[in-house]
């Protein structure tokens, strides 16, 4: 045997010790025992030429230390103590983020992926930002005291009354102002809103998210592209979106946005029956439209140079249309009932 052959055999032995999954006791016997693999190899030292024996001895000593370490780090012998794995796990007690926070988080991330910037604007704002700058005529029903909460405070001479925002659209002109009237704008504004109504599908306080995109050459196709992106990301692949004519003062054209029903796969039918979760295969989610030229002007943007689209939907409704989330009474969301919140 040459010293090179010895080195190769040592390397092989080390590797076989590393690969051996046996427990510590078994490995101790098989590698370091009296008739173990180390001793068997050590006997070969006599086969080395006398001048190589010293070097061979050193290599074998080093190997022994290494093997001892490897064996020491092997797994402990298997015990025979019985553990009852049929007992349910002991869960750490955790709380829950609110379903609205979970929805907002998902919505934000979906839009941030395609370059939207999330912003926050006042919840109590001037009439100017909530209505006037959004092309709402003074006698528009949304501006009267039956639908909007007004704060009992003096009006501002230029900005008008102090109102609780009825939608997140007050962020539109504010965002144009923040960017000093210089597009590109891709905004997502998510906030608490307030309307003077209360029943199973309305609470006095709710949440909206508002998208606003303004740049040169923005068209209806870009709105459709953005809606399709959201539909697929939020409700899952295969979900389709569509826009239909609608009317809002601050967009022209205006649209109603629908997403295909994932329960009946957009067919409107479950077996032979009508799908009771949607209207003919579609869910109405909210409004959208191309930004009205007057709104761009109010935000200091030239409507002859730029176009844009906007959309604003209720977080509660958008979220509750998800698979298996048929929350039929929206008031539960703000009931603080642990039995409700702990499911999320």
């Amino acid at each position: 045997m040459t010293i090179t052959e010895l080195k190769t055999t040592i390397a092989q032995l080390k590797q076989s010790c590393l690969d051996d999954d046996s427990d510590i006791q078994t490995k101790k016997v098989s590698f370091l025992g009296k008739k173990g693999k180390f001793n068997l190899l050590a006997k070969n030292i006599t086969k080395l030429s006398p001048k190589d024996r010293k070097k061979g001895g050193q290599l074998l000593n080093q190997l022994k230390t290494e093997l001892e370490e490897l064996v020491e780090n092997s797994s402990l012998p298997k015990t025979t103590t019985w553990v009852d794995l049929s007992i349910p796990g002991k869960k750490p007690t955790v709380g829950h983020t609110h379903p609205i926070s979970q929805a907002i988080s998902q919505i934000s991330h979906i839009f941030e992926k395609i370059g939207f910037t999330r912003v926050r604007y006042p919840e109590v704002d001037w009439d100017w930002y909530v209505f006037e700058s959004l092309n709402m005529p003074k006698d528009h029903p949304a501006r009267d005291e039956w639908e909007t909460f007004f704060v009992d405070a003096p009006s501002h001479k230029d900005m008008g009354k102090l109102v609780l925002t009825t939608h997140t659209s007050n962020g539109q002109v504010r965002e144009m102002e923040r960017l000093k009237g210089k597009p590109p704008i891709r905004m997502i504004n998510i906030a608490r809103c307030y309307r003077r109504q209360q029943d199973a599908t309305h609470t006095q306080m709710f949440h909206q998210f508002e998208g606003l995109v303004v740049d040169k050459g923005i068209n209806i196709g870009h709105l459709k592209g953005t809606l399709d992106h959201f539909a697929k990301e939020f409700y899952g692949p295969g979900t389709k979106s569509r826009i239909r004519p609608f009317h809002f003062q601050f967009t022209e054209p205006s649209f109603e946005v629908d997403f295909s029903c994932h329960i009946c796969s957009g067919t409107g039918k479950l077996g032979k029956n009508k799908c009771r979760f949607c209207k003919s295969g579609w869910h109405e989610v909210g409004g959208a439209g191309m930004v009205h030229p007057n709104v761009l002007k109010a935000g200091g943007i030239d409507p002859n140079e730029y176009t844009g689209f906007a959309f604003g939907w209720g977080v509660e409704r958008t979220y509750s249309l998800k698979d298996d989330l048929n929350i039929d009474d929206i008031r539960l969301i703000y009931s603080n009932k642990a039995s409700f919140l702990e499911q999320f």
Partner: protein
Amino acid sequence: MNILIPHNWLLEHLQTEAKPSDIQRELSLSGPSVERMIEDGSQIIYDIEVTTNRVDSMSVRGIAREAAVILNQAGFKSKLLPLSINQLDTKEILPLPKITNQPELSQRVTCVVLKDVQRTPTPNWMGERLRQTEMNVHDAAIDITNYVTHELGHPCHAFDYDKLMATGGEIRVEEAKKGESFTTLDGESFVTVGGEVVFKNGKGKIIDLPSIKGTQNTSIDNRTKNVLLLLESIRADKVRFASMTHAIRTTAAQLMEKHVDPHLAEVVLKRGVELYQDLCQAELASPIFDEFHHPEPPLPAIVPLATFETYLGIKLTSEKITKILTMLECEVQIDQNQANIVVQPPTFRPDLKIPADIVEEVARIYGYHNLPSQLMPTAIPTTYPTNTDFNLEEKVKTFLSLVNWQEVYTYSLVSQELATESGLAAGRHLKLQNPLTEDRVYLRRSLFPSLKEAISQNPLKSRYSVFEMANTYIPQNNELPKEELKLGLASTQSAQNVRGVIESLLDHLFVDGYNFLVNKDKTSSQIYAISRGENNKYKLGTLVTKSGYCFAELNWKNILMVANSHPKYQAPSSTPSTVEELTFTISISQPVGPILETIKNVSPLISKVLFNNQYKQNISLSTIYHDPTKTLSALDIKPIRQKLVKKVELAHDAKLIGKV
């Protein structure tokens, strides 16, 4: 606003090869949304949502007109059938009442007298349609007005001619003063608030609430023989005002508050007369009175042809655009250099004013579903708002939820009781001018009362902890209120646990240094922290214990100032630390915090002092000694220990258990 349209009735105005399901689909995609198709025996009734700007579609004929255009474009041959109404053969048998109108209150008043109206039952065909559209069936003389309104879209009212003439035979269109009373035809009495447009007789008595509801003193009853059929066009905002003020939400009011085209009045009046003649054998007994102050015709919209491509993202030919607009009854011209299209909309479309309105008409009829779908190829903005960090908000919420705190969303609007529970008088809160319910009147200035309420709503939960991130609202003079985003934490756990969670949260946010300064009242403490870099001290908020609750309210703006994205890293020390446990007996009211501070300040070799636990008056502490340059020996530590015990005993009236 929804309208029910029976398919058979629609077919009296629309000739089409489309099936009901085609009508539902195509109308929804390009016009008013057909939300449901109701099956009534063998008949179909469409439940259609009409947007508030399209009151011209709020009738059977209005829907037929839209459907004809949309269905043709979708490839279903369709046609709006002409209205066949005979010319009226008027005679002067009975005098018309004297009508004094104010054009600024009513653009048009038109009426005619019908004599010897027979009180015949409503014929079956009409009764069925009224029932299908959820209207009550009375007798023909009453039902004709509802029927015509639904069919053609302009409300009309039948007065009892003889009652009207008995009150003086005069109609004055006026604004009511405050405090005038009237009783509607169903017997309900009201008192005016002032400003409602009403009809009065010569003596100033209210004899009708026009465009909303008739009054008992002039409306048809069982004895009515002669009828005055009248249509008026009261100012839309005045209609809404009176209707909302008195909560009289009739179909008439809901139509007229949306600017019904006054031109429609003539055909509706004629159709009404025709039905009174046919069904009630009435005789036309007067000429037609018609005071019509024609509105200024709307200016034509001039639309650069390029605008269509800008909005649609595809190019449509000018022929295609012209064809669509012409089908919608617009007059269309293309200017000489082929750059602009000039569009004059019909009188029933006052909503078409600016180029974008015209683009919308073309786009919807062309079909939004026929436009491409693609994401914007434009630049992504990178100017982000300052003073917000939504990711950090999410991080805080996730952290708290994972250490067993429940997030809640409570109302920003609170009752007077909850408002004052914040410690501030109700008057120092923003108050709503028109609250809907008594429990939502004030904009809150503290989250605590709401969070406390949230806990108490879950009585079965022992040691419940909730948190919320929400605004508080501080009134400002002539300015917007200051909205301060707060992180509120409320718990029935011990103050030590709550403080521990806050400390742990601040560690999680890599806040370098923070401390809790106990207030003199001993029931609250202020939380401070230092910002990295500039080394400024920020007050983060307050921790309060109160009637079994522990509550903290942290100011998010200041948390943003002290939070960091990463820790201040220190290499692990190569020398070991020594830990020693000491137990002191302290006096009953002695706080532990200052003792820990005293020990920490004894020597720079004391790296940390930990509070282990307390049993009655005995407190157990761990002192950690560490020298980064060498391993400390027992001899090194002994003098420090002696010094700290002496200091604690002297400064805090404590006694060490055991020997130094």
